[in-house]
């Protein structure tokens, strides 16, 4: 801390710094007010000109003016100076000002520290694999700046390379430390202080309400909803119904969970159904949805932590899901549910009076003619299958007070929400208790990671009806219209406005194959990243460490384990870095060095200018008692090195002599 002299800042250091800052700031640009980005770029270019054309540094007054300008711009564009977004704007604006006033070593250090800090702010917006990779490059460039600042001589392409190499090595060598710290550093559950509201962006997905068009909107999205890894076999595609919100109440147009929005059936601590087949065991990794539903294969057999199961088999968390969650799940695809309560029956038959009169009339007619639940269902499905119903992503709008009537008897073009809601309406009119279930259907198998990817476009709606002998039974009217829907995934690019939906068929040709492989490989990498890196939280840490079986239970154990790990790593690293350069590939040189080391321990150093003979003469003068050994070793060495003596025996003799030599 003392006696540090200040050296002028080399231009090369400034150039590195400019590059590093540009790389660190620019990914924020789409999120920043345009004016802030512009201000930063102007200041950066200005400083660049100062270097290139030797412009004069700024006066104190103009620096003050520019600082005020920066503050003003941030305040005007953001309306505040506090909070995440405004804070980052402020940081970037002030970084620009700092660049202009930067004059000595200290300023450069401060700027570099701010640059490191700026990198971390990106992670509040994105933690994807791409972001991580890019930011790693940025960190290498920032570190290179730091190294260049600490160099004495500057300039030359060779130095650019050697500085980059040095920075890369530092990162590589720091990686094991990072790994241990990452695993063992005790995590705490929630935030230290609340800042979280702004981290939630708008996410697409299912909600507790279904109105016409909602799910068909989702069908345009390739965003991943969740990924599922099965322990053993996968259920066949027609059985892959991922259960989400269950909707009971309708006003004829929209469907809701209940009038109040809360699930009407109450919670149960145990799944109330009788499993009929073998269970499927799997693990779901769900992307944040800002909703409270956990998705599980129909029907879920266990209840994950911090969640509950409603009577209508919805899994709901206590708090909205704002971060990626992972849960283990067991499901039974064949089951018989328990009894229906009076209240449930009442709700499952609710229909608004006077709305959709045609539909209600049709239902009542079926009840009168058939008087058998199974036959009624059959009649409805037969209607969808045989009459001219078309399954389309962009159905015509149903802008009428009786949308079901218009759909069933007029347009006949619809998406799953149309089919499920019209079906349930028909059933209720015919006196069959029924409800709408929304969720996802299908999923794409990633052969690279051997897991299912369920995307938003797989969102689906189907129906459940109550039959006395089976309980609640799933009926998917969409499958009656478009059986492929439950076999294949929807292909967005090919499904045009108003046309019938096309489905993903395997793309032909080598290129198609390559594209598919790449897509699966990339998703598999992302999935691994999510599973192992981003999802590593307090609970994961605890279970990971207890699975290790090292007895690391409490955070105190973690701290101790961390200290041990870091110290041993440092020790190993030290041995590596300090000894690496002293090993010569030539065994003779190694022997000679070992001999010199023995002498150096006794305080006799070979001077670089001394050849073996001069050295040995000096040693003998200083320590006549070693004369015999020293002379023998020196003579052997000289013979081998310079006189080309018969090597094998001489080398052995030299080794023995040196091993014997005990100064």
């Amino acid at each position, binding site marked *: *801390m003392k*006696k*540090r*002299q200040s*050296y002028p800042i080399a231009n090369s250091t400034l150039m590195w710094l400019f590059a590093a800052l540009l790389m660190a700031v620019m990914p924020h640009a789409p999120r920043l007010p345009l004016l802030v980005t512009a201000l930063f770029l102007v200041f950066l270019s200005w400083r660049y000109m100062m270097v290139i054309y030797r412009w004069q540094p700024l006066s104190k007054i103009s620096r003050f003016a520019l600082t005020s300008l920066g503050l003003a711009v941030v305040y005007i564009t953001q309306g505040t100076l506090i909070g995440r977004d405004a804070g980052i704007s402020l940081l970037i604006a002030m970084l620009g000002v700092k660049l202009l006033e930067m004059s000595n070593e*200290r300023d450069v*250090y*401060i700027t570099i*520290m701010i640059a*490191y*800090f700026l990198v*971390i702010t990106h*992670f*509040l917006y994105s*933690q994807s694999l791409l*972001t*991580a990779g890019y*930011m790693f490059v940025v960190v290498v460039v920032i*570190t290179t700046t*730091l*190294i260049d*600042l*600490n*160099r*004495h*001589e500057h300039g030359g392409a060779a130095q650019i390379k050697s500085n980059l190499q040095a920075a890369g090595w*530092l*990162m590589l*060598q*720091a*990686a*094991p*430390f*990072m790994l241990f*710290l*990452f695993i063992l*550093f005790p*995590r*705490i559950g*929630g*935030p*230290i*202080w609340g*800042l*979280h509201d702004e*981290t939630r962006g708008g996410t697409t997905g299912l909600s507790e309400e279904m109105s016409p068009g909602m799910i068909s909107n989702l069908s345009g999205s390739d965003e991943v909803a969740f990924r599922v890894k099965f322990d053993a076999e996968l259920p066949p595609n027609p059985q892959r119904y991922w259960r989400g919100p269950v909707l009971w109440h309708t006003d004829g147009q929209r469907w809701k969970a209940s009038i109040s929005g809360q699930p009407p059936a109450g919670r149960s601590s145990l799944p109330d159904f009788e499993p009929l087949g073998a269970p499927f065991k799997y693990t779901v990794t769900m992307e944040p949805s800002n909703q409270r539903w956990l998705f599980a294969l129909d029907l879920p057999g266990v209840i994950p932590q911090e969640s509950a199961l409603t009577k209508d088999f919805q899994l709901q968390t206590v708090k909205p899901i704002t971060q990626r969650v992972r849960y283990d799940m067991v499901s039974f695809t064949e089951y018989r549910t328990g009894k229906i309560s009076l209240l449930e029956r009442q709700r499952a038959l609710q229909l608004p009076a006077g709305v959709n009169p045609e539909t209600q009339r049709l239902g009542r007619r079926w009840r009168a003619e058939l008087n058998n639940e199974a036959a009624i269902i059959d009649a409805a499905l037969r209607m969808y299958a045989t009459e001219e119903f078309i399954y389309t992503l962009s159905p015509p709008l149903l802008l009428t007070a009786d949308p079901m009537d218009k759909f069933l008897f007029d347009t006949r073009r619809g998406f799953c929400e149309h089919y499920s809601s019209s079906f349930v309406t028909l059933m209720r009119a015919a006196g069959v208790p029924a409800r709408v279930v929304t969720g996802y259907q299908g999923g794409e198998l990633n052969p690279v990671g051997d897991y299912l990817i369920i995307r938003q476009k797989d969102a689906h709606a189907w129906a459940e009806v109550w039959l006395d002998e089976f309980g609640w039974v799933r009926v998917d009217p969409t499958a009656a219209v478009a059986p492929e829907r439950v076999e294949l995934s929807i292909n967005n690019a090919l499904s045009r406005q108003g046309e019938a939906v096309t489905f993903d068929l395997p793309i032909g040709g080598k290129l198609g194959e390559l594209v598919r492989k790449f897509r699966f490989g990339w998703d598999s990498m992302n999935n691994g990243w999510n599973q192992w*890196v*981003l999802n*590593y*939280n307090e609970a994961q840490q605890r279970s990971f460490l207890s699975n290790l079986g090292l007895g690391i239970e409490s955070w105190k154990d973690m701290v101790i384990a961390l200290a041990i790990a*870091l110290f041993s790593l*440092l020790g190993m*690293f030290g041995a590596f*870095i*300090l000894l690496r*350069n*002293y090993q010569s590939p030539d065994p003779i040189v190694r022997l000679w060095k070992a001999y010199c080391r023995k002498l150096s321990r006794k305080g006799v*150093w070979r*001077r*670089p200018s001394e050849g073996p003979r001069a050295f040995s003469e000096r040693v003998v003068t200083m320590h006549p008692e070693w004369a015999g050994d020293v002379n023998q070793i020196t003579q052997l060495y000289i013979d081998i090195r310079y006189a080309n003596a018969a090597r094998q025996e001489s080398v052995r003799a030299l080794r023995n002599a040196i091993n014997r030599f005990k100064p």
Partner: protein
Amino acid sequence: MSQQPSAGRSGAFERFLKRRYVKPGEARLHRRKIFILPTYYGLVFGATLFIMLLGALNYNNNLAFMLTFLLGGVALIATYHTYRNINRLLLRAGRCNPTFAGQPAHFRLIVDNLNGNPRYAVELIANDGSGTRADIPANSLTALELAVPTTRRGRHALGLVTIQTSYPIGVYRAWSYVDPQASCIVYPRPEGLDRAPPPSQSVGAEQGNQHHGTDDFIGFRDYASGDSPRHIHWKAVARGQPIMTKQFSRPESQELWLDWDMLQGTDTESRLSQLCKWVLDAEDAGCRYGLRLPKQVIEQGNGEDHKHRCLEALALFEDVP
């Protein structure tokens, strides 16, 4: 007149380290002699990491954790890199050309890098704070020059030298103290009246070698030590003959005795400064000159060697009452 290195500026801890770990002479830096502590920037870096850690904890952001831990790892291993940057360097004093008081003494220190790692930005700092910085290539000897200001004539000891480095990332300072036992002869400051010394009366015939000037060549004589190399008959030497010196005739008046006793009435240092100036002037004018000090007499002569002999006598003059 040797100057002791002043220890007044250094702290108690530093004084302890110096007393405990420094041995005079050639030194090889190794783990027991190298100290390492964070710099001011190291503390700033630590504070930055701490803030980043708080952010990561608060947002429960695993990438933020990773970055913080990566930089933490860099901070840990940088200790080794900084330490290694001066480890196993061999330091010894090189030659130091004499200088005049008031001008810097250029101490040369030989830094010997015995292994295959180049060392970057190694700093040497003298006791008075003057320093130098250089890169030291792998497997090489590098001479570094420390320019230390001088004020007084005499033998100027360099004293302890701090060798230090902050490479690669400036967050640590690794340093060691060495005492290379380097010293420099500092001649008196050449100043005084701008007048030539009075010619010495008795010179001339008494000495019998009046023909040594630079005007007309008059013949050869045997070489005597102190003769100017310019006057050696090199061609003869090249032929393998004994070394001969060319003799030239020169006016008598340019033979001088520079006498301490001529400068009565002023103090010792002023007298020495005046004598110093006379020596330089006489050498410039091509005179033959001798120096008479109270306890030492340097016979007349000229040339670089002669000049330095005289100046050294002045530099190391000890005023005995």
